[in-house]
């Protein structure tokens, strides 16, 4: 029996960070969809190909919280992890009320991010 690889969407406007996270997720065996702004992330998520989303809070066009709100309004319940800078940690906690399953404060460790992704995918 083959296990289908899960797909993770990364929405991060800093291209090289996006590429680094993508490489780490692929190393872990995930399929990855990359988005570089909020609008692109939302379009991809509404197509329903992702099993989990990693959304940066501050992004061009639509920020992470707006993407999350529109996603939930569209009835998509996939798990979302929001990440943003340290000085906005208190607002990240608020994102849990918006429907995010977890949040990651930047700067972050890649292994920590992977363990949170693995946990949510397993729970799903």
């Amino acid at each position, binding site marked *: 029996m083959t296990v289908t690889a899960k797909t993770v969407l990364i929405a991060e406007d*800093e291209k*090289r*960070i996006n*590429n*680094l996270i993508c*490489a*780490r997720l692929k*190393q872990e065996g995930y399929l990855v969809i990359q988005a570089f702004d909020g609008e692109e992330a939302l379009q991809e998520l509404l197509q329903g190909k992702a099993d989990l989303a990693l959304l940066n809070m501050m992004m061009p066009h639509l920020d992470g919280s707006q993407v999350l709100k529109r996603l939930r309004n569209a009835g998509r319940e996939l798990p979302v992890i929001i990440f943003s800078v*340290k*000085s906005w*940690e*208190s607002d990240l*906690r608020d994102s849990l009320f918006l429907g995010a399953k977890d949040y990651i404060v*930047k*700067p*972050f*460790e*890649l*292994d*920590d991010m992977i363990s949170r992704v693995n946990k949510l995918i397993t729970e799903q």
Partner: protein
Amino acid sequence: MDPFLTILIYSIYTSSAIILFFLVVIVFLRWKAAREEREYKLCEKEWEPLYIDYILGKSELDYVKSQFLKTNRYKFYRLFFTPYLKMLDGKDFEATKALCREISIIGHYRQKLLKRNLYDKATAAKMLGDFRCYQSIPERIRMLKSKNHLLILAAAQGLAVSNNPRAFRPVLKALLSNTYFTYEGATEILSRFGSEICPPITELLGEYSKGFVPAALNNPRKKNNAFRSLLPKAKPATVNHTLLVIILIDLLGHYRYAEALPVLNRLLAKADTETIVHILKAYLRIGKLPAEYDPGVYLKHEDWVIRNFAIQTTEMAPDKDLIPKLDQLLNDENWWVRYHAARALMAFGDAGHSLLILRADGSETESATIAAYVLASKEVS
């Protein structure tokens, strides 16, 4: 030839030559920038997969170091590594820092920090902050005492992102001492330290709340306590203790540090108008109220801003005994006070809602208008 015409012709030639000169300079600089950008893109294309393989453990440090050094493009290292230094933590950050150390970037900026050139020093201070380089902290703290605004700013920013709480007090003192920094600018830099600064801030405010007497500032017989030592000695009149206290309170509110509530409540009892405003704002941001807090006192305050924030705190812990006081405030002289009083009553359940409906139909113009307005906006939402 007419002399006037001669002068005119020479003026035209000279102006044309100057304009042409500047055009050539602009074109040359743009060409140079475009060429540098192309060079950088080539380096980035080569370095990025190397770096990713290194971070993912697929390549060894020595190999990656040799590949970076082979390209001989030192000037682009800063541009390349800065995003990773800002985004990564733990072993990924340490690995990046190790690579930067091996290719001599850290050493390069530590040397630059000792140079006289202000731009070099400022760049080095910021980069060493990004590297979280603790060895150069004493030098950067010394830079905070510079007379140059650029150096102070670079040193303060670099120290703030170093995540080293022991640099907090020197940075705070430098920002207060330098009159170029606005309140917003200072708090923006200080907020980069992270929530680790909340315990020392709470300790400082705790000390202040135990009876710091401003008049004692200039008394040579009084021993310096930690709070007093933050105030600049040269300009006590321009930077008073109130400014320091409200910056610290705002930082606690920004980080929603609930452990500071008892200290904030102690401060509230003896605070001046400005400080009361900031403490109430901090309560709203933290989202909790101290057990001993009584909004009733502040609902009657002569300052409308305090009345306004005090009303908002009542929504966090609706107490039916406050309804008559909020009812009175529906006729307050200030629109914002009336508006928030009406909104707060909506948080009091049926008792508050019924009262608003009653007031909306009442004969008193101010309360009727505001009650109707808030009820209508609630229906729309």
